[in-house]
């Protein structure tokens, strides 16, 4: 499914999204909301779409989530 991946990388997420700086600002709160089982996307709109469109922020989100999950 390389084509779909390439198309997605080119076209990005469809909906509105925050930028990288806001994503970093909100990331700790977003991750804790996820780990607490809350609706992180409703609480902080635009973060999930940004994570879908930005590989670097996505990697950092995955790492923070995995690290915090160890002690949550």
């Amino acid at each position, binding site marked *: *499914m*390389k*084509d*779909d991946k*390439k*198309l*997605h*990388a*080119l*076209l*990005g*997420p*469809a*909906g*509105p*999204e*925050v*930028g*990288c*700086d*806001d994503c*970093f*600002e*909100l*990331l*700790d*709160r977003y*991750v*804790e909301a996820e780990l607490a089982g809350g609706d992180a996307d409703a609480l*902080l*709109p*635009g*973060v999930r779409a*940004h994570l879908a*469109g*930005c*590989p*670097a922020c996505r*990697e*950092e989100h995955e*790492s*923070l989530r*995995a*690290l*915090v999950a160890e*002690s949550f």
Partner: protein
Amino acid sequence: MRAVAAGSVEAVAVIDLVDEPLDLESRAWLADLRATGAAHDAAVARLHALLLRAARFETARRRPTLPHLRGDELDDIALEAADDALVSVLRRLDDFRGASRFTTWAYKFALLEAAVKLRKRAWQAREVPLEPESWQLFAGGTAPDEAAARSELVSAVRIAVATELTPHQHRVLVALALNGVPIDVLADRLGTTRGALYKTLHDARRRLRAALAESGLDLEEMG
């Protein structure tokens, strides 16, 4: 208090800037870091240890993708990341509003520093490809009927990429989305920031989506 997040790609994030009541542990961290003398020094040392743990977590996670890096090089990167994160956290202490635990907030600085350093290290001495050398990836990898169903969209995207973008948008989109150059690496080479580059990428993507919609292509499943 509510405020629209400054610098959003689009103004979608309405953030509650409510100062949450701090949990006891976070309150202790802040009190110790704002203290003077031995209590302050001890808290800074504890914070550095915490940040180093986070940075090592990141280097360990990425180790499989960095086979050419020796263990001691990774450790040096983790230590540098912890040092830099410590400076950031101490400088931004007043920005911490208790929206998360203090440790979660602090961790993200160490993870960011480590991730950025590792991306740059991985691309050190590598040329950053700015031309669409990976278009051929569209030619293979899918079943024939899937390829046929996609071919109209793919060729429309190709044309839009070639004709709809400014030279800067084209260069940024090709490097990031087609050639897989990490955004921090490209920001470094172009003398800009991740945030500014993402804005360019976002504008380019909007332009492409608009052009494709104008030519009547259904992008719904590309959500």
